[in-house]
Each structure stands twice: as C-alpha cells, then as structure tokens.
C-alpha cells in the first residue's frame, strides 16, 4: 500500500499507451476545457485529437506538417471529482477488483490530466452519512491525497452509498463553475437524481463515469455473494442458475440503456468502465464525447 496511488494512475498512462496516445489524450482533455485565451503562446506540431480549428493554416502552409496554435490559458480551470465513497463502491466491479480501484484509476487519470493542464483539482466524496469536500489545488501531492482519501473512505464497513445526497450537497455548496466528474456505480437513475443532474448541468459541466457492477450470476461459486447494502446473501445455486443468468444479463443491459438514455436526456456525457485496465479507453471515449457535445 506504500505505492502512491498516483503512480499507478501514471503507469496506466505511460505503460499502457505509447507517447503518442498520451499526448492524444492530453489533447482531448485540453479541448474539453475551454481553456483558450487570446494570448497566443506558440505553435506546435498537430497531434490527432487537437481541435481542427486550432490549426494555424498559414503557418501550416509554410511548413511541411500541420501546426496548431497554443494559447496561454487565461485562468485556471477547476476540476471537481465527485466520488461516491459508500460501501457500495467497495463491492466488486465487473473486472473483479473492488469498484473503488476502478474509480480511483479513472478519477486519478482525469485529475492527472487536469494537473498536467495546469488546472486545480478538488474532491467531494461522501456516503449516506454525509459529504466531505477537499479543497482545490494543483499539485501532484494534493492529487495523491485526494486519491488516498477516496481509497481510505471506501470500505465495506462504511455507510451506504447515497449519490443523491452527494450531488445535492454539490448543488447546494459548490458555487463556482467547474468541470464535475461524477464517479458512480450501476444505480437506478430515478427522477430525483435526474432533476439534480439537470440542475448541476446548468451550474457546471458534468461528466459521468459509471463503474460497472460485477455480475453476481457469473461470480465464482466458491464464494458467497453478499450484497453490501443490506448484507443479504445471494444463494449460490440460485444466482448461478442459467435462466436467472440470462434474465439478469437482459435486465442489466436494460438498466444500462435506461441510465444512458436518462443521462443523454439531461445532456451529460457519460461512459462506462468495468476494470482498471479499461480506464484509459473509457476516459478517452468520455472526453471525446464531451468534446463533440460541447461544440
């Protein structure tokens, strides 16, 4: 546990991707933020993911390769990680590791991108017992502290997950316009949540990342499947019944579709991720969707 959580985040970025895709995702992130000012900084080579409209066509004409303009960001942007740290997030993700690992990897990656971009990163975390806010800062050590806070708060003996309360707190207490990254699990998006999200989308810019739940019907038969919310044990022979499995797959797909539809409805970009190994792809896709949605 002594390995800094951020190191793992970085390793996803550095090890699992080539340098080109790293700049690619950084480009994606920069585009998501409207971090442009009128102060021209310099020109650099175009990398895929850069905004086409940032291409300096005149300079490109003089040069053999496309060049893009870089501007000095006029102000620091704010990224607020909104992470559910109830015990629901300590349960297993689709990939087999606890969902909080996936959440930390995803939040860490976006946080790190923001940090690299020179933005401030904050955190609001919470469960049914209340919300805790961490201040906005722009340092690696601070990001590490935030990830560590998520890691430590999300335990099986923590309070229940309650995303509505967390989002309500954000809506009431976060005044400045920010980019909100909501990391939640596969929950039912009810009207209350949809209303909150609609309000938050007006106040801020919201990204939604769903950490996919483990499928109880395919979990190992040698382990007892216990629901973390009420400690209810799902009998092994019942949950692994082929008919139950088929019905669950259908129901889970329907829920995912409903969640997607509800998020689309409030114009929030959303993504799904089931394992830490898929975080990079998922985040890239999410940023890509957000970039397209904003334009």
């Amino acid at each position, binding site marked *: 546990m002594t390995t800094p959580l951020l190191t793992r985040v970085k390793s996803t970025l550095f090890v699992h991707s080539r340098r080109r895709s790293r700049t690619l995702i950084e480009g994606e992130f920069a585009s998501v933020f409207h971090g442009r000012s009128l102060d021209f900084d310099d020109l650099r080579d175009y990398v895929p993911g850069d905004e086409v409209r940032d291409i300096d066509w005149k300079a490109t004409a003089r040069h053999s390769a496309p060049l893009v303009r870089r501007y000095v960001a006029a102000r620091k942007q704010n990224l607020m990680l909104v992470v559910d740290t109830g*015990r*629901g*997030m*300590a*349960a*297993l993700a689709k990939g087999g590791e*606890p*969902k909080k690992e996936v959440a930390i990897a995803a939040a860490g990656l976006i946080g790190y991108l923001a940090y690299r971009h020179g933005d401030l990163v904050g955190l609001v975390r919470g469960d049914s017992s209340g919300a805790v806010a961490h201040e906005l800062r722009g340092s690696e050590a601070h990001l590490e502290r935030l990830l560590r806070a998520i890691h430590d708060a999300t335990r*099986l*003996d923590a309070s229940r*997950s309650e995303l509505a309360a967390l989002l309500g707190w954000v809506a009431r207490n976060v005044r400045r316009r920010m980019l909100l990254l909501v990391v939640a*699990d*596969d*929950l*039912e998006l009810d009207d209350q949540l949809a209303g909150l999200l609609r309000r938050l989308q007006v106040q801020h810019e919201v990204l939604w990342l769903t950490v996919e*739940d*483990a499928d*109880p*019907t395919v*979990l*190992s*038969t040698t*382990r*007892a*499947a*216990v*629901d*973390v*919310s*009420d*400690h*209810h044990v*799902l*009998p*092994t*022979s*019942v*949950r*692994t*019944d*082929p*008919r*139950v499995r*088929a*019905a*669950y797959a259908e*129901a*889970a797909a329907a*829920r995912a579709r409903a969640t997607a539809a509800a998020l689309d409805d409030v114009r929030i970009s959303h993504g799904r991720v089931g394992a830490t190994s898929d975080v990079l792809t998922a985040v890239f896709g999410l940023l890509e969707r957000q970039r397209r949605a904003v334009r």
Partner: protein
Amino acid sequence: MELRYPGLLLVVGGVVLALLTLLALSAVRRRRPRRAGPADAAVANSGLLTALPEYRRALRHHRVRLLLFSLSAVLLGGGALVGAARPVAVDIERPSTRNRDIVLCLDVSGSMAPYDAELVRTFSRLATQFEGERIGLLIFNSSAVTVFPLTDDYEFIRDELHIALRSLSGDREFEYFFAGTFNGAGTSLIGDGLASCVSAFDRVDTSRARSVVFATDNHVAGEPIMDLEEATEMAVARRVRVYGLNPEEWGQDEQSITMRDLVCSTAGDYYVMSDPAAVDGIVAAVTAQEATTIESAPRRLVGDSPALAIAFAGLGLAGLITAGRRWRP
C-alpha cells in the same frame, strides 16, 4: 417396540442434537446482518437481480430443495440412529401343544405273526391320519419292549414303523427288533402287554386324552403277572381308553368276546382287523376326545425388527439423492 441399545440412541442422538443446535445457533448468528468478509464476494445493487421473477422462482425452488434436503437428512440420520440402536420386537410366548397321547400296542406272539405286518401297515395309516398327537409303539410277547416312546416327531415315527414292517415281514437284517420280548414266563402274556402299554404314558399327574390301540388276538399262552381283566382295570383307573384291534383268525370266539367286553369297558372300542372302518373309527374316536394343552414355561422371544428404521432411512436417502441431484447446475 423396544431398543436393544437405547443408550446408543441417547448418547449419539444427544451428541448429534447438540452439534445440530450449535450449527443452527451459528447459522442464526450468521444470518444476522454480516459484513462481507474477505472470503466473500461483495456485490452492490443486487436489487436488480433479486427483483427478477426468474430469481424469485429459482429461490423458491432452492428453498423447497433445502427443506427436502434437511428433512431427508433428518429422516436418514434418525433412521440410521434408531436402526443402530437395534429395534427389537419382544413377544412373551407360552409354547403349548394341544394333543393327545396314543400308544400303539402290538402283540408279536407267534399266533399273531401272520397279521403283524398288516397291523403295522394299519398303524402307519393311523399315524399319517393323526396330526400333532404324540404316538408311541410297544411290542410285547412274554414281555413288553418300547420301540419308541411317545413323540410327535412324525418322520421318526414313519422310519420306525418302516423298520417294524420290514422286521415283521421276516427281514433277517432286523431280527434285533424282537429283542427283549421273551423275558417272561411263556408267550403271549396279553395282560402284561396291556399293562405295560398303559404304563407307557408320561405325565401321569396331568389329565390328558390317552388311548391305547391294542392289537392282539387275546390268546394267552403262559402265566401272566396280570391278566387282561386286571390290566383293563388299571387302564380304567388311569383313564386310558383301549381300542381293540383283533385279527379274529377263527371268527368270534370266547377270547375275542372277552376282549371286546373288556376294551369297551374302558370307553374304548373294538374292531376286527379286516373291518375297513377300523382305522377311521379309531381316528374319529381318538380325536373326538378333548385335547389337553401341555404348557411349557413362558419364553421371552426377542427378534430384531429393523424394517421400519431401514424404510425411513431409505426414504431419507432417496430424498437426499433427489434433493442433491443437479445441486449445482
């Protein structure tokens, strides 16, 4: 229904019961909200799964199966335990034989020699017609010899009568058959013979139906210790009925009339050997008498009766197999 080893049932049953109670207690404790431990797979939002009608149906089946499984286990365990304690059926039996005693009394004197084989055949027929009665055979000439005492072993009786038949038919191999019949003064001591036959009954103190089938021609040649009249009195005194069977070689003579009168005085009957009704008459007369029960000491008969325990255990086993089949699909 009793148990041979009730202690086993108590001890093992008690231990099993205690173990089951402990198990149940720990199960109840575990049923209380428990946090997912490191060995468990913690899942969230399982409401989606548990709300499925397929899940509810599977859960119902699972519970029915569990119930069947536990009931079968209890049945098998209980059956095995009771079976191990050896259930026994205890019967108090007073073995009793209701029968009559019949002594066949055969005169093997020279005057009877031509008829004895025929008489033994008659005795054989008689013996096959009785059932459960005790039969004995005495032969006499100048003294009486017991060929076999009163017995209800009919196989033995048949064999002995067969030997008698062969020896009386003149088979030299069985000459010993007549040994001991010439120890008296003279031959054909009819009265002594009857007296010996009347004395051949056992259990003289009990009142039983006793009969003597007395085959003789009543031709005395010698000095008997008791004459026929005295022997008859003895029979009357001991309530023994004497059924006379006379070849009547020379037709009705003085001796045969005397004999008829005397045997009739014992409440018995008199038949001529050639009379085809003789055998049936004797059988009817003997069986008409009331049979008396001989009672032995009461006996406690203890026999294993594991059928019920085995049946229940088998039922439990069948249930276990049924419930255990496709336990993990």
